[in-house]
């Protein structure tokens, strides 16, 4: 659990983050959104003390984050940034091993961890360990960057626009991978982005920052239903509201009993994508299948329409 308590940051009289308080539940994905200059990155960087707050406190599992030197704190918190930030003169394996080496792990344990993470991120350890970052594609570099952030098994992972430099196809894959890994490891993720689609796709809870203040913090559906300010409304986009709702949950969550013809949909795709498939296929219902191919039921145009309507 991360408790942010009345945190404020001023630079030369400029208030960048203004009295923000919020509690981030463990094992969830929290996405901080806002326009550039809204203070979202500064807020994130105060959690691992890359930026020291002017006032206020941040507690990790009840412990003040100033109770140890900054560099020790940062070794216990994963950190991934846009453009991956890999060290160009070190191999993939050396990059991933950075924090374990700093922590003084034994060689065998480090090697095992590197192999485990590479496998987890679908990079063949034999082929990739000895490569240098510039020999990888953008998506692979980004995965290695996240693997490095997770190497010391941190409870908390901070991500600053981690997918900002990726093209849309690779970005979607990276987001799906991140969700899968978060579910597997149970890491608490705090992610900063200005991409609302990304926020709705990933977040358990969304925090909206505007001019240094936290204007709304809640579940994605709450933001769509009851935007706290005009700014939140604009950010979500009035015409996007039904689709935002549909993009929160998966097709599996919308399954109804009953038969349907046509090519089955994967249960993991979003309801928004399911709706799109229905419209494109020109059908009012399509079957939904689990990963192993068993048919779970169907999604219907009518059911999805109901889910996209303004919550009562």
């Amino acid at each position, binding site marked *: 659990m991360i408790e942010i308590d009345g945190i404020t940051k001023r630079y030369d009289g400029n208030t960048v983050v203004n009295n923000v308080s919020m509690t981030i539940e463990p094992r969830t994905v929290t996405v901080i959104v806002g326009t550039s200059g809204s203070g979202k990155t500064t807020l994130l960087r105060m959690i691992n003390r890359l930026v020291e707050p002017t006032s206020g406190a941040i507690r990790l599992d009840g412990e003040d984050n100033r109770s140890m030197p900054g560099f020790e704190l940062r070794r216990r918190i994963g950190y991934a*940034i*846009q453009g991956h*930030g890999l060290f160009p*003169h070190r191999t993939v394996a050396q990059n991933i091993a950075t924090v374990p080496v*700093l922590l003084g792990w034994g060689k065998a344990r480090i090697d095992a961890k590197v192999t485990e993470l590479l496998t987890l991120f679908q990079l063949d350890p034999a082929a990739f360990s000895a490569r*240098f970052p*510039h020999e990888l594609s953008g998506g692979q570099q980004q995965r290695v960057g996240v693997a490095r952030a997770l190497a010391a098994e941190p409870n908390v992972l901070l991500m600053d626009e981690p997918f900002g430099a990726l093209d849309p196809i690779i970005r979607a894959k990276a987001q799906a991978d991140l969700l899968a890994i978060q579910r597997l490891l149970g890491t608490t993720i705090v992610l900063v982005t200005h991409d609302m689609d990304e926020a709705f796709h990933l977040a358990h809870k969304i925090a909206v920052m505007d001019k240094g203040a936290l204007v709304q913090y809640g579940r994605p559906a709450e933001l769509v239903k009851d935007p706290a300010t005009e700014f939140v409304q604009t950010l979500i986009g009035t015409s996007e509201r039904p689709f935002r709702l549909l993009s929160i949950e998966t097709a599996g969550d919308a399954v109804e009993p009953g038969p349907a013809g046509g090519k089955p949909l994967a249960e993991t795709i979003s309801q928004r994508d399911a709706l799109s498939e229905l419209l494109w296929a020109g059908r009012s219902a399509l079957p939904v299948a689990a990963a192993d191919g068993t048919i779970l039921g169907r999604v219907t145009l009518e059911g999805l329409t109901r889910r996209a309507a303004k919550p009562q």
Partner: protein
Amino acid sequence: MSIRFDKLGVVIALLIAYAVLAAPFATFRANRIVPGDANGILDALPAGAGMLLLGLMACAALIVLLKTPTGLRLVAAAGGLAAIAVFIGMAATFLTPPSNSYARVSPASGFWILLFSFALLAADSITRLRPLPLVRVLLLAITLGGAAVVLMSGLWDGLSILKEYSGRADVFWLEAGRHVTLALGSLFASVLVGLPLGILCHRVAPLRAGLLNTLNLIQTIPSIALFGILIAPLGWIAVNVPGAAAIGIRGIGAAPAFVALFLYSLLPVVANTVVGLAGVPREANEAARGIGMTDRQRLFGIEFPLAMPVILTGIRIVLVQNIGLATIAALIGGGGFGVFVFQGIGQTAMDLVLLGAAPTVVLAFAAAIVLDALIEMNAPQRERSRAA
């Protein structure tokens, strides 16, 4: 089959043709200071040898002129260099009257143009072959070894420069030692001081402009003026600081030369350290901090390795610059090859000037090649694998 010309080859072939046909190959003088008679290749060499050299040069020019394999061009360059090295020695023996120790034979413009042409050809071929750094150092070693063999064989003993040397052999090596000590010592000192200064400039932005401008200013002071400026403070130190005079600190001599070279060296070292550190990718630095590296770990683990090629480039500039500048030290009694240069100018004996200048050039050239190789070996993987 159409005949195709090599662009640079045309220039080199024209140079060779001019050097062989129009320019004098060796100069004969009755003694070391009178003006001499210039001799073309056919006059400077015994008849057969002259024709042979002409033939060899014609072959080389032909290889150079046409588009030929790079390996063959390199062989032509090496062969050309070896040929003129051997024949200039022969010319010296041929032109000097028997048992006349006053007469001087020195290479004339034709020889120097040929030397330049073949050196250019060699450099061009080596660049085209793109050998690994170690191979380049090896080529340098072979060339220097070859020159050493020629020197020791006595082939050049008839040449004026070696006649000047033979009278001063002891002093020559003494001054060589001083020259290298001055150049390398001041380099070492400037790296020792300049690296921390560069790091400081990088970390403390307000310091940067001030310090770099000061070093820039020092760089613009003419060396002789700097020597003059240093006489007073160093003289004061020699008198007032116990032990200073004992280790050789005086207003004139090696101490001010050392200090001046050191001051000139600081700008390239500090500036390149600053530029190198500034060139470290922002994200890498940011990530290093974000995952918990301390400032020291970041400096030695990330910033230094990534900035090393640029810093080494600065050190290379300093080394080559210092080897050249150390010549000036002789003006204030600091020793080095400059001693021969200034003596030679004083006596209007150009051979003596050459005795000081030639080893300086060879030394600077060798230092540049070795450090270039070192820089390339230290370059990030990125560039190395791209070059491969």
